[in-house]
């Protein structure tokens, strides 16, 4: 018997005669109402020691340039060019190699959505989010979230997301509490996460 058949038959034997599977009650909140979800999102992101700035759309390119400063940054091919018009960015097309990414000082990307209740940014591996390595190898990440992309709750986010692409939830910069439970921001991945929220 193959391992597959063996495991499956052990499972069937183990649950034979048990009560039928129960229905799952979903009595928890589907949405999250906090008045202004964008304000709440900004507060929650800041709570993770990421820096948050609110900007008007007209000022976006200037603010991006200011944030980037002298850094050499990579951007996904799908990032609207007018967002980074003020800087000289390295576009990830054709795809940069890992050593090339390692030479960058940072990355500027968009996002798929933001979750207010948890202060989470969700990247979906394509378009303006970029493939995963871009927001992982460089040490600095500037992430641009449009106010209209912010949803209230985790269930709202899960419902919106398309499962077939690589998805990354980011809630603050990477962190460890492994040494005497002291939180240290930035272990692997970008040690600094800056978030721009674009208000229309």
């Amino acid at each position, binding site marked *: 018997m193959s*391992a597959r058949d063996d495991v499956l038959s052990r499972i069937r034997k183990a649950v034979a005669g048990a009560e039928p599977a129960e229905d799952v009650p979903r009595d928890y909140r589907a949405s999250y109402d906090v008045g202004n979800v964008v304000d709440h999102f900004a507060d929650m992101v800041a709570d993770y020691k990421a820096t948050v700035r609110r900007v008007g759309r007209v000022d976006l390119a200037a603010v991006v340039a200011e944030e980037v400063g002298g850094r050499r940054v990579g951007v996904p091919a799908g990032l609207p060019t007018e967002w980074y018009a003020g800087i000289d960015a390295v576009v990830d097309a054709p795809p940069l190699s890992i050593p090339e990414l390692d030479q960058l000082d940072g990355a500027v990307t968009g996002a798929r959505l933001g*979750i207010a209740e948890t202060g989470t940014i969700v990247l979906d591996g*394509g378009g303006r989010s970029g*493939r*995963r390595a871009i927001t992982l190898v460089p040490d600095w990440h500037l992430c641009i979230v449009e106010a209209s992309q912010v949803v209230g709750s985790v269930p709202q986010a899960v419902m919106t997301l398309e499962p077939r692409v690589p998805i990354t939830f980011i*809630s603050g910069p990477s962190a460890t*509490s492994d040494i*005497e439970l002291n939180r*240290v921001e930035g272990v692997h991945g970008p040690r600094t996460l800056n978030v721009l929220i674009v208000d229309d």
Partner: protein
Amino acid sequence: MTDHPTRTTALPWPRRHSTPFPQAAKIKLADTQLRRNLRKATTTIRAKRAAVVGELPDWEELREAARATKAATLRELDVHLLRLEESVTAAGGKVHWARDGAEANAMVAAIARGHGVDEVVKIKSLTTDEIDLNVALAEQGITAWETDLAELIVQLGHDESSHILVPAIHKNRSEIQQIFTDSGLDPASDSPADLAGAARRYLRERFLRAKVGVSGANFAIADTGSVVVVESEGNGRMCLTLPEVLVTVMGIEKVLPTWQDLEVFLQVLPRSSTGERMNPYTSIWTGVAAGDGPQEFHLILLDNGRTRALADEIGRQALQCIRCSACLNVCPVYERVGGHAYGSVYPGPIGAIITPLLQGMHGSESLPYASSLCGACYEVCPVKIDIPTVLVHLRDESVQSHTRPTVNDVAFRSLAWIFGDRRRYEKAQQLGKLGTPFGSVFRPWSASRGPLAVAPQSFRAWWQENHR
């Protein structure tokens, strides 16, 4: 620093030891550094968890949904696993089935060798610890680099993990600096930031050159074939994204039926686990994505005793566990003795039930007694595993498995009875010291193995401070 400072992973150090809980607990209780660290850790995490759980008005509804989802999935586990296999395959992944750890280890080794590598980068995973994957790989000449900071500390210190979530909780900063310096990592000081920085530099070159990554999984979605890894440090993202080949070893109980189920588990896990609204990084991938991440993905579905646990009507609920470690942090016994005393990769209240359920009673008879049955573990469990009930059930089995009560049975039952009640406990301590007949319940094993496995004064002090 040599090129392979942790080549000693080739020496199989014991991940589990066979010292029964009472003796191991005694040894550990004498270690005051461990006790201080554990106490600080559990107190901090308990408070954080309580705060973020308190933020959710629907916490009980989420718990109930989480429990029911897991219970219903286990009831039809075969159906969900077949569906998962189909979805992962359709998305370009390859699914393998392993009856036990040896089969799973051989598969990982074969995949690594097939790509001609002698090293893999690895994300902390209890499942791969459970099957001693690193040792098995080392025997094949393959080094597994542990990339979690705590796991790195444990690996470089040739030590064992003592907590599911913070495995190096028993080491303080100066001990960690020593371990790093001995291994050539060169931390600038013993500040947590400098220690983390040293680990970042050390691991980064390994991430960037790695061809094969190995991970566990927190969840896998049958409907879509998506696999989920929840983490804090970013080493997970490194292992899941940069290598050309990814191998994920997953216990069969980790499957969830639908994408929607994530809306429950991505809420209850981080809040229960690290006490955060959301952990820093959660990665979700579905098979292989062109131009993004590993272009070869293997998912190994591991039984290794899970179907044995599933056959136990009362015990099967232990398979609902999402390894959040909340039950460890509220357990008075765990706080006193630490993870090592359990002699298993799964410590604490959940370890006391899952270890004998997965492996059978042989060798872990004492574990179901490593509890006072106070019920705190059940109250915090995000999937509502009734650990006290399973403990009592396993105690019965442990006793019944002998034709007549052994000295240990009597001793452990007494220990359980005493742990179960504060007044009884205090009384026993006083009387035990005076050597009255009441104190003699300890004698069967205390006579041959030393005094009661708990430091009486401090346990009582702790108890009064915390449980009034």
